[in-house]
């Protein structure tokens, strides 16, 4: 397996200097997702939703290396990625609730969070479909000669769909400034990776495109960030794309209708013991007190609660919104 860049940092070496910011963002995402579960039970969210508890270190670690002008695409399990890229929590809740103050004026919902003002240029509900679009975003940077980078998050399942192959191949031959991040949460919908995929390490697929493939502990936010930094630098320097496999775990079912009974006994507990927030907090205790951490938790909970309150007060979209935005 080609691993041209390895994590040069990890939480084992102590917490990053900006650990408080990283923890705050991861907690906001966790608390947001927990709140979404509540809203579902109250029938306030329509359709389906796909939550990312347990995967926060991947999106937060990667997005902490990006600027607002760098673009990011993600999947329908994308609330965390869009929040990590900088979207406002109240507009995120508003979108879930189908309110006019939502990110997409209530026209996209859970699976289509997008906030172009922070570079979150689309969550996609078709597995793998955003990878070719990411290639296009990277092409635009290369074409105009700026140093923007295009990052894409997608699941392990997406590495088995054709769009993955077409996108990585094209990005590689054109040496585009793209970073492809597999959130390997071990399951494609209800099926474990080993049942659908003949190799155990997805980063090996990078070999097919002659690009670096990097495996990283996706629950270690410092490690994720260090490999993301290298990949982003490589992209900005014009050296082409990187495939990162971030090993992590989906602590909840595929969607709200999935109790995840197919998981072997003990698996969830093993992963909960290395929950990314827990790992970061344990590392932080070397430099911060439990009271400090508690203050971060409370502030995050406050942000989430206030955002939800704001969103609940937003009106529904006026009916003339229906026919808007089909055409420019």
């Amino acid at each position, binding site marked *: 397996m080609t691993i041209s860049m390895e994590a040069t940092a990890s939480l084992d070496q102590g917490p990053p200097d900006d650990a408080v910011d990283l923890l705050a963002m991861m907690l906001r995402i966790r608390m947001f997702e927990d709140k979404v579960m509540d809203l579902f039970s109250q029938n306030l969210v329509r359709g389906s939703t796909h939550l990312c508890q347990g995967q926060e270190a991947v999106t937060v670690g990667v997005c902490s290396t990006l600027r607002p002008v760098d673009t990011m695409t993600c999947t329908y399990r994308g609330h965390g990625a869009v929040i990590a890229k900088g979207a406002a929590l109240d507009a995120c809740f508003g979108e879930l609730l189908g309110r006019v103050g939502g990110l997409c004026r209530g026209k996209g919902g859970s699976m289509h969070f997008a*906030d172009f003002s922070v570079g979150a240029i689309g969550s996609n509900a078709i597995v793998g479909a955003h990878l070719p679009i990411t290639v296009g975003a*990277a092409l*635009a940077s290369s074409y105009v000669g700026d140093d923007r980078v295009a990052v894409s998050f997608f699941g392990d399942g997406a590495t088995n769909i054709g769009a993955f192959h077409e996108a990585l191949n094209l990005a590689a031959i054109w040496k585009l400034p793209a970073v492809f991040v597999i959130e390997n949460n071990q399951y494609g919908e209800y099926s474990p990776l080993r049942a659908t995929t003949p190799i155990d390490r997805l980063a090996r697929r990078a070999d097919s495109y002659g690009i670096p493939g990097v495996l990283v502990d996706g629950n270690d936010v410092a490690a994720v960030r260090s490999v993301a930094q290298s990949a982003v630098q490589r992209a900005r320097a014009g050296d082409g794309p990187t495939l990162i496999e971030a090993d992590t775990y989906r602590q909840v079912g595929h969607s709200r209708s999935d109790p995840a009974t197919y998981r072997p006994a003990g698996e969830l507990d093993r992963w909960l013991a290395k929950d990314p927030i827990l790992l970061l907090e344990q590392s932080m205790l070397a430099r911060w007190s439990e009271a400090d951490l508690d203050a971060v938790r409370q502030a995050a909970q406050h942000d989430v609660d206030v955002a939800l309150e704001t969103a609940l007060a937003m009106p529904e979209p006026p009916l003339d919104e229906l026919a808007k935005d089909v055409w420019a």
Partner: protein
Amino acid sequence: MSDEINYRKVIAVALADAMREDDSVLLLGEDVGAAGGAFKTTAGLFEEFGARRVRDTPISEQAIVGAAIGSALCGLRPVAEIMFADFAGVCFDQIANQLAKYRYMTAGQAHLPVTIRMANGAGAGFAAQHSQAAENWFLSIPGLKIAVPATVPDLYLLLRAAIRDNDPVLVFEHKNLFALKGPIPRDAEPLRLGVADVVRRGSDVTIVATQQMRHRSVEAAELLAQDGIEVTVIDPRTLIPFDDEAVRASLEQTARLMVVQETVQAGSWGASLIARMVQHHFELFDAPPMLISTPDTPAPYAASLEREWLPSVDDIRISARDLVNW
């Protein structure tokens, strides 16, 4: 308007003019660059604009359309080529679920000035997977404009309009019209998408047809004129938006409507047009509307079978006479 050129060659003229006008216009597709295109429709562009703006891709239709979408989201004005329109099946998701819906799902945050050019249509013996009138696949997906040019000036003007348009436009170039000649309308007013061309006027029957069928309808109309039957032929030029008003206005005169198309009836633009006209203008009809389509089979290969499959000048002439005599 002095230079005569053929339908095949006017494509590169329109693309070059668009690229000279706007540096954000770039071309993507299989062999569009150094090779000048599988149909030589992009010949000379690579030499003038270079590999940065005229980009050869792998045989990866999803990546071609996806790259066009992503680059448009980030400020470019890409023109993607899908070599044969039939290959749109390979990237149907990118066109139907991504390109068409992106703007709506993001409440207007996304801008998608994307043009997709595709060679389509039957009559040249390319058989079932390279001969379809694939524009019909996209009629029920809001968010896509569809242009179906039949003449050299229309192809030039519609391609220019598509590239300037801030919405996604699918431009279907008919393979069997490549040799057709006509002027380059460089001095003409820019064409607005959604304006039909009333090709000829007559008071007995209105025939609506596009591309190859437009030319066959005109030929049939000239034969019918010898028998004293006066035909209006309308070429809508774009299917979305569709110039319903041009058809309605003509029906006021003729009270008889025939649509001729190069595809099966089900899910076709002709069926949709007739449904709209009957629903909204029933009082204008003196006879049932007539839809001339292909048989419900894939496009066949053999010359005799393909000739039989496509609506012919005679099919149109005889059916139009029946309609007038109804």
